[in-house]
C-alpha cells in the first residue's frame, strides 16, 4: 500500500506531472521533457521534488533534505524508516522484511530490503548496528542464487558489483511459490536493457540550475585553443557521421588536406578513424593528433593520402621536422594485428616519422588485472602479503605504463616541440587514456572542474569511447568480453597525478569518486551509449540529465581548496612505483576498518572562513578608526563606541 506525497513549497506547476505512479512495476513512462528548459528555476527555488513514501507522511528531515537538493540519496537518520530517500520518478518495486545481509566484515545483519526502479536499499534493523546499504541498481553486475534452499526454506543470493564489492543476502523463500521473490524482482530491474526496458536515467527528471549538457561545445573548445588558424581548419566532413560514425561531427584537420582526401584516408584507417587534432600547443604549435591503426595488413599496404595527411600534420608545426607516432600497444600485439588487416606505420613509408610503441596491454589484460585486484582488496586483505599480492595483480604496473606513455607524449610536445600522433588499435580505449592524460599534464585548463568535464566530453565521449559496451549498462551479460575498466584506469591515473601535485587540480578526490559512481549508476545520461552519433540519435540531452548538471550545481563539494592556478605550469609526474599508490579511498572504501582520510580540506575551509571573518573585522575597525580620526579632529571629546567582537584563534 503506498501513498504518494508531493511537496511543492513554492507552488510549482510541476507537481501534477510528477505524481509518481502507485504501482509502477510495469512502468515504461516516457514523459516528454521538451518543456524542461522552461521549467528550469534559479537554485533557490529548486526545492520541489515529489517524494513517494510508503505509509509515512513526510518528515521535516526529508523536507530539508529536499531543499538542499541532493539527488544522491543520503542516509536517513530516522531509525523508524526502512526506506531510502527517493528521487524523482523513483518508485518502490518490492520490499522484503527479514532479509539477512551477510556482511563480510561484521557478520550477519538482519533488516529490510527495498528494491526500487533505481536502487537496492537495505537497512539493518539491529538497534546497535545502523548499517545501510544504498546501491544504484546500475552498479550490479551479476545477481545469482547461491546453492539450493536450506531445510529452513532459506535461499541465498550473491550480488557482484561493478564498484569493487560483492554482497550476499539470505532470505526465506516466500510460502506462496507463485509469488516472485524479491531477488527475482531485483534481477528484473537491475538489467533493464536485457529486459527491453529503458534505463532509469531516461525517467529521472531532476531539474538543476545548470544544464550539464551544455558544458561542452566543440567549437568553443577549439576556439580556446586558438583554432582554426592558418594551419588548421575545422572540417564539416563528418557532420552527418558519414566519414566515421564513431567520431564527433566537428573535426580539426590540416588546411592543406581537402575533405575529399580525408575520405580516402578514412578507408585506410581502422573504422575510418583518421588522424585529427586533439590539442595544439599555444606557443610551439606542436600538436597531439589521434587516430586508429593503419590498415596495413599482411601485405604491407600503404596509402599515399594517409602519408600526406601525416606529412601535413608535421608541416603544420614549423618548430620540428619530425613527427612522432606513438602506438600504445606492445609491438608484438601491433604486429599480430597485421594478420587481421591492421598493423602499424612503416617508417619507410612515413618519412621523418618515428614510431614508438608504448607497451600498454589490451583491455582484456586490464579486466583480468582488476579482477585480481578485487580479489586482493575485497573483502579482506591478507596482511602478511599485501604488497606482493598487490604486485601480482599488476594493476599499478599498468597504471604506470599508461602514465609513462602519456608522460612521453607530453614531454615530446612540450620539451621537444614536436607534434605527435597517438593511436592503438581502434583508437578508442588506450588512445583517449594517453591523449587526455597528456593534455592534463600540458594544459592547466583541463585541471579545473569544468575543464576536466570538457576533457572527458571531448576525448572520451565525443571521440567514441564505447562506454555502453565497456561498462555494460543494464545488461545482464556480465561475462561480455567487451567490458573493461579502461575509464576507471584513466581516472586512477588522474588520481595518481593529484597525489603528486596536491595543489595543481581544482577538483578533489570526491569529484573523481562521484564520476566513477555515476559511471555505473545509470542515473545520468552522460556515460550512456557508445558514440556521439548514438547519443544524438537517442536524444540523450533531451531525455536524460547530465552528470555535470549535478556537479556544477554543488561545486563547493568537489573543490580542492589547496588549488593554485598555475596556468603556465606543465606537470611532469614521476612515474615510478615509489610514488604510485593503490587508491584506497576508492578500492578499499567498503572496508569498515578503513576510515576516510581526515578531511584536510575541511580544516582548510575552516581556515578560509577564519580569514574571511578576520578580514571583515579588520576592515570594520579600519573604517571605525578612520571615522574616529576624522571625528576627533573636529570634536576632540568624541567617544567612539567599542564594538570589538571576540576573536577566536585556532592556530
Amino acid at each position, binding site marked *: 500500500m503506498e501513498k504518494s506525497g508531493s511537496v511543492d513549497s513554492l507552488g510549482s506547476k510541476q507537481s501534477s506531472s510528477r505524481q509518481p505512479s502507485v504501482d509502477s512495476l510495469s512502468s515504461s513512462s516516457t514523459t516528454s521533457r521538451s518543456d524542461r528548459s522552461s521549467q528550469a528555476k534559479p537554485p533557490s527555488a529548486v526545492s520541489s521534488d515529489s517524494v513517494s513514501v510508503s505509509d509515512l507522511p513526510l518528515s521535516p528531515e526529508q523536507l530539508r533534505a529536499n531543499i538542499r537538493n541532493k539527488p544522491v540519496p543520503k542516509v536517513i537518520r530516522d*531509525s523508524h524508516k526502512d526506506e531510502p530517500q527517493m528521487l524523482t520518478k523513483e518508485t518502490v518495486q518490492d520490499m522484503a522484511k527479514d532479509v*539477512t545481509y551477510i556482511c563480510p566484515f561484521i557478520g550477519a545483519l538482519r533488516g529490510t530490503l527495498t528494491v526500487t526502479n533505481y536502487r537496492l536499499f537495505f537497512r539493518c534493523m539491529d538497534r546497535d548496528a545502523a548499517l545501510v546499504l544504498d546501491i544504484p541498481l546500475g552498479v550490479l553486475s551479476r545477481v545469482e542464487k547461491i546453492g539450493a534452499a536450506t531445510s529452513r526454506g532459506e535461499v541465498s543470493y550473491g550480488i557482484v558489483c561493478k564498484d569493487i564489492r560483492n554482497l550476499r543476502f539470505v532470505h526465506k523463500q516466500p510460502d506462496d511459490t507463485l509469488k516472485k521473490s524479491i531477488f527475482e524482482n531485483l534481477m528484473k530491474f537491475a538489467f533493464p536493457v536485457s529486459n527491453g526496458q529503458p534505463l532509469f536515467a531516461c525517467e529521472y527528471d531532476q531539474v538543476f540550475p545548470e544544464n550539464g549538457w551544455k558544458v561542452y561545445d566543440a567549437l568553443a573548445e577549439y576556439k580556446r585553443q586558438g583554432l582554426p588558424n592558418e594551419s588548421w581548419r575545422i572540417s564539416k566532413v563528418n557532420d552527418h557521421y558519414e566519414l566515421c560514425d564513431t567520431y564527433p561531427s566537428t573535426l580539426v584537420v590540416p588546411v592543406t588536406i581537402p575533405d575529399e582526401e580525408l575520405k580516402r584516408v578514412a578507408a585506410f584507417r581502422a573504422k575510418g578513424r583518421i588522424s585529427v587534432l586533439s590539442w595544439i600547443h599555444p606557443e610551439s604549435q606542436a600538436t597531439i593528433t589521434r587516430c586508429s591503426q593503419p590498415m596495413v595488413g599482411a601485405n604491407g599496404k600503404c596509402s599515399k593520402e594517409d602519408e600526406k595527411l601525416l606529412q601535413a600534420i608535421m608541416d603544420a608545426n614549423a618548430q620540428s621536422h619530425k613527427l612522432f607516432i606513438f602506438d600504445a600497444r606492445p609491438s608484438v600485439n601491433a604486429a599480430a594485428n597485421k594478420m587481421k588487416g591492421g598493423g602499424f606505420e612503416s617508417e619507410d613509408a612515413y618519412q621523418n616519422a618515428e614510431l614508438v610503441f608504448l607497451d600498454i596491454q589490451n583491455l582484456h589484460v586490464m579486466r583480468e588485472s582488476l579482477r585480481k585486484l578485487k580479489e586482493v582488496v575485497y573483502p579482506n586483505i591478507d596482511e602478511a602479503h599485501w604488497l606482493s599480492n598487490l604486485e601480482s595483480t599488476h594493476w599499478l604496473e599498468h597504471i604506470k605504463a599508461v602514465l609513462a606513455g602519456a608522460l612521453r607524449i607530453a614531454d615530446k610536445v612540450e620539451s621537444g616541440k614536436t607534434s605527435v600522433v597517438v593511436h592503438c588499435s581502434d583508437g578508442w580505449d588506450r588512445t583517449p587514456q594517453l591523449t587526455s592524460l597528456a593534455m592534463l599534464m600540458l594544459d592547466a585548463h583541463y585541471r579545473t572542474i569544468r575543464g576536466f568535464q570538457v576533457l572527458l566530453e571531448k576525448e572520451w565521449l565525443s571521440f567514441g569511447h564505447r562506454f555502453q559496451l565497456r561498462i555494460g549498462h543494464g545488461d545482464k551479460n556480465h561475462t561480455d568480453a567487451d567490458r573493461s575498466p579502461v575509464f576507471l584506469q584513466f581516472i586512477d591515473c588522474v588520481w595518481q597525478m593529484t597525489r603528486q*601535485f596536491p595543489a595543481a587540480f581544482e577538483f578533489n578526490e570526491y569529484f573523481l569518486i562521484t564520476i566513477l559512481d555515476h559511471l555505473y549508476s545509470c542515473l545520468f545520461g552522460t556515460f550512456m551509449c557508445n558514440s556521439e552519433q548514438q547519443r544524438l540519435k537517442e536524444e540523450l540531452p533531451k531525455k536524460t540529465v547530465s552528470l555535470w548538471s549535478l556537479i556544477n550545481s554543488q561545486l563547493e563539494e568537489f573543490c580542492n581548496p589547496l588549488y593554485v592556478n598555475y596556468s603556465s605550469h606543465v606537470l611532469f609526474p614521476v612515474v615510478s612505483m615509489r610514488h604510485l599508490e593503490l587508491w584506497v579511498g576508492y578500492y578499499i572504501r567498503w572496508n569498515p576498518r578503513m576510515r576516510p582520510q581526515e578531511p584536510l580540506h575541511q580544516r582548510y575551509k575552516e581556515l578560509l572562513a577564519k580569514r574571511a571573518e578576520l578580514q571583515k573585522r579588520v576592515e570594520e575597525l579600519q573604517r571605525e578608526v578612520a571615522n574616529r580620526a576624522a571625528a576627533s579632529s573636529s570634536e576632540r571629546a568624541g567617544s567612539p563606541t567599542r564594538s570589538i567582537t571576540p576573536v577566536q584563534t585556532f592556530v
Partner: protein
Amino acid sequence: MFSVKPLKPTFKSYLPPLQTDLKKSPQLTIRKLEAKLLPGEIVVNEANFVRKCIGADSSQDDLWGKLICTNFKVSFITHNSLPQQNFKYVHRLLGEHDVPLACVEQVVTVNDVKGKQKVLGSNKKLKFNPTELILYCKDLRILRFRFDQAGPESAKKVCLAIAHYSQPADPQLLFGFEYVSSRYYGSSGERVNGVDPGGGQQTPLFDRPSDWDREIKRTGASEWRVCSVNEGYTISPSLPEYFVVPASLADQDLKQYACSFTGQRIPLWCWNHPNGSALVRMSSISDPQQQRKLDQRICSAITKSHPQRCDVFKSDLDKQLPNIQEVQAALVKLRQICVIEPFEESEEKWLSSLESSRWMDYVRAFLRHAVEVVYTLEGKHTSVILLEEEDRDLSCVVAGLVQLMLDPHCRSLLGFQALVQKEWVMAGHRFLDRCNHLKRNEERRKEESPLFLLFLDCVWQLLNQYPSAFEFTETYLTVLSDSMWIPIFSTFLFNCPKQRAEHSRDFARSRSIRLGQDQALRFPAVWDWSQQFSPKDQTLFNNPLYVGKGATCVQNGAVKTFKRTKKSYSSTLRGLPPALRNGQLSDLDTLPRRNSLVLRLRPELGQAREPCETPCERFVRERFSRPADPQGMLLPQLLPSHLSLWRLYFLRWVPEARIPHGGPATAFHKLSLLVDEIHTLQSRLRHYNTSNSTPTPTGPPPPAPSLALSPPPNPPQRPHSLSRPQPEQQQQQQQQQQQQHHGRMYFRTSSSAPAGTPSTPDYLSSSFPFSPEGNLCRRGLLGTPLSKLLSGARIWLSTETLANEAL
C-alpha cells in the same frame, strides 16, 4: 625525466672519465679555501683539488674544492655553487657539503686504474692510492669524491683519517666532549657561556623531581608519587635519578624489590589516562624465586593506584614484537632498495622488495600493539604494564606511541619533546649503542638498531593519517632523526643518564674543568633547535594545519579556552561524502554505546560464515565510524594498504624520485600562506584593540602595512609557561619578539604581492627542504651496482667491515 632504460653498466666506465671541462680546472681557484671550525674542532687531514661528484651520469656539474677531515666532520669546501639550487636551509653546525663523522656508515676507497676497491675501517691500511672515495651515510646519503687531480698521498691520508675518526674507540672521543668543554668552559676551566639544557624553551628534561611532579599533576595521577631512591644512581645504573611509582610503595620496599629486576629497574610509571588507568613499564624479574610474589606486589600496588581498583593487564612486548636485530635487518634491506640499488632495476619488484624488507610490517606491528594498549586503557579502563626483558627498547616505542594516540599534549611540539625525553632519554634507551657511534666490531654491530627511527616512522604514519593533529611537520621528524648523527646533543650521546654523568665527570676531571655546581658537563639537548637552525628555518617545523589544544579565544582582551563545539563536529561529518558513508556503520544518532555488543547473531544464522572480530578490532571500527577529533584519541588505520612509505625520509636523496614542483611541500606552501595571513590579520586586530583600549588621542593610527611584521598574536600555549608578565616586561617582550620573530610560518605572504595569487616557488619539490643534488651519487659508482662491487670486493676485504652490507 621519464623512464628511459638506464645504460647497462659496462666495464668501459672503469676508465677515468675524460676531462672535457677545462673551465673547471682547479688552478682557477685562487682564493684560499679554509674550513669553518666549531669550538674544539681541529683539522686532522686535508686534500686539495678534490672533485665532488654531483650528477649521476656526467662529471659536468662536479665541484672542485678541498676535502677536509676534522675531529667532527668530513668537510668539502668549494667556491663553486651547485647548479640550479636556489634553496637551502642553513645548518649552523654544518656546511652545505659537510657530513658529521658520526653519520658516516661506511668508507669505500677505489682505484679505478688498478680496478681495486676497499672498505676502510678504523686503523686499517690502504695499499693503493685512491682515485675515488665513497661515503655511505647513516642518513642514507651517498657522497662521492674523486682525486684525479689531488696529490695521491694526501688523498690517501684523508681517506684513512675519515675512516679512523668516524669510529672512535671511546665515547669521550666523540666530538661533543671537545665542543662542550671549549664552547662553554673557559681555558681555565670555568663556565663561560650559558648553555640552556632545556633547549632555550621549556622542554622538561625529567632530570629533576619538579618535572615529574608537573607530569603527575597534568595527567591527574594522584595515587602516584615521585621517588628519589635512585639519587646518585645508587640502585639502578640505567634508571634516571627520579621517577614515579605507586604511592603505596615505600622507598624501602622499592630498594628491596630492585635487586630482583633485570638491571635493578624498578617499574616505571609512564602516564595516566583521565579515567585513572595507568601505563607502566617494567623489566623482567630475574630472580625466579621472587617472581610470583614480586609480580603480585607490583600489580596490587598499581591496582591500588587506580581509582576503581581495576586489575592490571600485562603486555609482553618481547613475545609480540620484532627484536632489535630484526628491526636493524629491515632497515638494511630497505636502505638497499631505496638508495643503493639502481633506480630502474628495482622498479619492477619494488612492492615485493618493500614487503620483504619487513620494515612496513614492523611499523604496523608497533602501531597495532600500541592500539591494543590504548584499547585496554581507554576501552577497558585497565592499567597496563609493558613488559620487556630490559625495558629499554621496545617499551620506549610502545609507551611513546600510546601516549601520542591518547594524549593531545604529546602532539604539540613541546609535548612531543617531553615525551621523547621521558620515554627514551630518561628511561635509558641505549642511544650510544643503538646508533653505534663507536668503533664497530661484531659485538657492537649486534647492538645497533634504528628503533628511534622506527618510532619516528610510526609517528609519521599518525601524522600522515591525521594531518591536523600534530603541531609539528614531517620535516621536523626528519631533522630530528638526522640530529642523531651530530654527536653533540645530550639527547642521543649516551645509553642512560648515569653514563652521561660518569663520562662527563671523568672528562671534566681529565681536562681540569671546574664543574662548580653542575654535577656533569652541560651538553645541549637537541631540543635547543637554535643550535642547528635559525629562527626562520625552525618555522619549517610548524604545521599550518595544527588544531591547537583548547585553541585560545581572545574575548575583549580576556583569554578563554575555546572548545570545539558540536557544530564543528557535525560540519566535519557533513564534509564526509555520502558515497563514502554508504555501506558503513555511520549513523551518529544510533551509535552504540561503548562496549555494547554490536552483534547479537540470531541463532539460526550460526552457520553463516562469521568473521571473527576481536574486541579491540571492534573498538577501533566503532571509533572509525565517528569523525576524528584532532584533539581527541587518534587511532591509526592498521590495514597494510593504509600505511605508506615515509617518502620524505627514505627517498629525499633519490634524484629520480624527486617530483619537481610537486609533493606535499606544495600543499604545505599553500597552507602556510593562508595561516600566515590569518596571523597577520589577528595581529592587526590586536593592534586596533590595544589602540582602542589605551586611547592615544594625539597620535594618528599607525599605517596598516607595517603591522605585517608584528609578532604572531598567540604563541601556542606553553604548558609550563611563566606567570603573566608585568606591563613593562610585556613591552620589552614585544620588542624582543619583534626582533626575533619572523612569524610562525615558513612561507609568508609578502605585503607587496597581490592577495589571492601566491606564486609557488620553483624550488618546491617532494624532497623539500632537502635536495638530492650531490647527495646521492649511486649510479656513478663505476657503473657497477654496489652489490656487485661488494661481492667482488669480498675476496680481498676483511669480512668485518662488510657484515653490515651483506644481503
